[in-house]
C-alpha cells in the first residue's frame, strides 16, 4: 500500500500534467465538435440539395475513416503541403471534426424529431427561420439531443488518448512512461480511474442539463437514481 502511495507521490506531477493535457483536448475538441455538429446538423436540413449533399459527403468522410488515420493525416501529411499544425491544434481539430460529424447526425435527428405541428405553427405565426429555431425548435430538440451528445462526449474523452501517438504528454502517454517505474498494473490502473472520473463528471453534467431541458418542456424529470443509472450506462 505504501509502495503505491510512494509511486503516486513520485509520479503525481506528471500525472497531473497528463490529466491537464487530456482535459484541454477534451474541452477543446468538444467545443469544436459541438460547433461542427450544430453547423452540419442544421445544414443537413437545408432546402438546397447541394448543401445537403455536401453535408453528407463531409459526414461520411469523417465517419468512414479512422480517427487515428485522420490525426496522422493532419500531423504528418499536411506539413508536406506546407501546413504545420501544433500538436494541440491537430488533436483538437481531429477530435472536433470527427465527433462533430457524428454529432451532426444526433443534431439532425433531434431537430427532425420535433413534431411537424411545431414547425407548421411557426410558419402559421410567420416566424423567421432564426426566430423559430432559437425560440421554438431548438429548445425542444436540445432535450432530445443531449443523451446522444452525452455518449459522444464520453467517446471523445477516450478518443483523446490518440494524442499520445504524436507524443503529446497526455494521460495515456504519461501512464505509458510511468510503466517502467510503477509497473504495468499500477500505471494503467491509475490512468483508467482518472479517465473514468472525467467521463463520469462530464456525463453527470450533461444529465443535469438534460433534466433542466426536460423540466422546461414540462416533461417528467428523471429521478436521481435514473440519472445515475443512465450515467453508468453512457460511460460503460
Amino acid at each position, binding site marked *: 500500500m505504501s509502495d503505491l502511495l510512494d509511486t503516486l507521490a513520485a509520479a503525481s506531477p506528471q500525472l497531473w500534467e497528463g490529466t491537464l493535457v487530456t482535459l484541454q483536448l477534451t474541452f477543446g475538441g468538444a467545443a469544436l465538435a459541438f460547433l461542427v455538429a450544430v453547423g452540419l446538423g442544421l445544414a443537413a436540413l437545408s432546402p438546397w440539395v447541394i448543401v445537403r449533399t455536401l453535408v453528407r459527403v463531409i459526414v461520411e468522410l469523417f465517419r468512414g475513416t479512422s480517427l487515428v488515420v485522420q490525426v496522422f493525416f493532419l500531423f504528418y501529411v499536411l506539413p508536406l503541403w506546407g501546413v504545420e499544425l501544433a500538436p494541440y491544434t491537430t488533436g483538437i481539430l481531429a477530435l472536433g471534426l470527427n465527433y462533430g460529424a457524428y454529432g451532426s447526425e444526433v443534431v439532425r435527428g433531434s431537430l427532425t424529431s420535433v413534431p411537424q405541428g411545431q414547425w407548421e405553427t411557426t410558419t402559421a*405565426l*410567420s416566424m423567421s427561420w432564426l426566430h423559430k429555431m432559437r425560440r421554438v425548435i431548438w429548445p425542444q430538440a436540445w432535450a432530445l439531443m443531449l443523451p446522444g451528445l452525452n455518449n459522444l462526449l464520453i467517446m471523445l474523452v477516450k478518443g483523446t488518448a490518440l494524442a499520445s501517438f504524436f507524443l503529446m504528454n497526455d494521460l495515456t502517454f504519461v501512464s505509458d512512461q510511468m510503466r517502467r517505474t510503477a509497473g504495468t498494473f499500477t500505471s494503467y490502473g491509475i490512468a483508467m480511474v482518472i479517465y473514468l472520473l472525467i467521463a463520469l463528471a462530464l456525463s453527470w453534467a450533461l444529465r443535469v442539463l438534460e433534466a433542466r431541458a426536460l423540466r422546461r418542456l414540462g416533461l417528467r424529470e428523471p429521478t436521481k437514481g435514473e440519472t445515475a443509472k443512465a450515467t453508468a450506462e453512457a460511460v460503460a
Partner: protein
Amino acid sequence: MIHFQDVVKRFGDTTVLDGLDFTVAPGERVTLIGPSGSGKTTILRLLMTLEDLTEGFIYVDGEPLTHELRDGKRVARRPRDVSKTRRRIGMVFQQFNLFPNMSVLENITEAPIHVLGKPKQEAREDALRILEQVGLRERANAHPMQLSGGQQQRVAIARALAMHPEILLLDEVTSALDPELVGDVLEVLREIARTTNITMLIVTHEMQFARDVSNRVLMFDSGRILEEAEPDKMFSHPEHERTRRFLQAIL
C-alpha cells in the same frame, strides 16, 4: 377577401384539387364539409402556405399569396413578401400545437413581440385580454401540459387571435377533444364570430355549430365543390344525393 383561382394541388401523381375556384367575402364565415380525403385540409393548408401551390393563384384582398402573374408568367413571390401577406391569416390546428417550452402567456405573446414587433407590455396586456375572452386568464402562467385538451385548444385560439388576423382558419379544432370538452371550445368560437368581423374558414363535423356561425356551407367531393348553400338549406334540403348521404352518415 379570399380568392382561389384555378388552383391545382398535386401530391406526386395524386391530384387533390383540380382547377378549384371560389371566393370568400370579407367577414364571411364559410364551413367546408365533405367526406374524408375530399381536400378540405389541403385548402386551408394552401392558404396558410404549409403546402406548395402546384398551379393557379390564391389572392388575399387582391394581393397574391405565394404566386403572382408577372409579364404573363406565373412566378413565385419572394419569401419576405409571402410572409407579409401571410400575416393576415391565422390558423388553429386539430392538435393544438402549443409550444411546450413556454408558458401559456409566452405562447401567446411570442409572435406578437418577435414577429410584429409589439412592445412587451402591450403584447402582455393584449394576451391577458384575449385569455379573458377564452376564459383562461387565471391560467396565464400555467404550463401547457397542465391544461386539459379543451383548455389547450382555447390557448391555441388565443395565440392565433393575438396576431389580429383578418382571416382565421379552423381545421377540425374539436376533433381531438374528449366530447365533454368540445362545448367550451365551440362557445369561444361562437363568441369570436359574434364579436368580431374576422373572416373564418371552418372545417368541422359539428353541424349545429356550423349552422350557428356560418353564412355559407361548401360541400366538397374529390377536391371539387359539389354544392354550396346557406347552412339551413344545406342541412335541411341538400340538392345532391351525395350530400344527403354524407350528412346522414355524420349526423
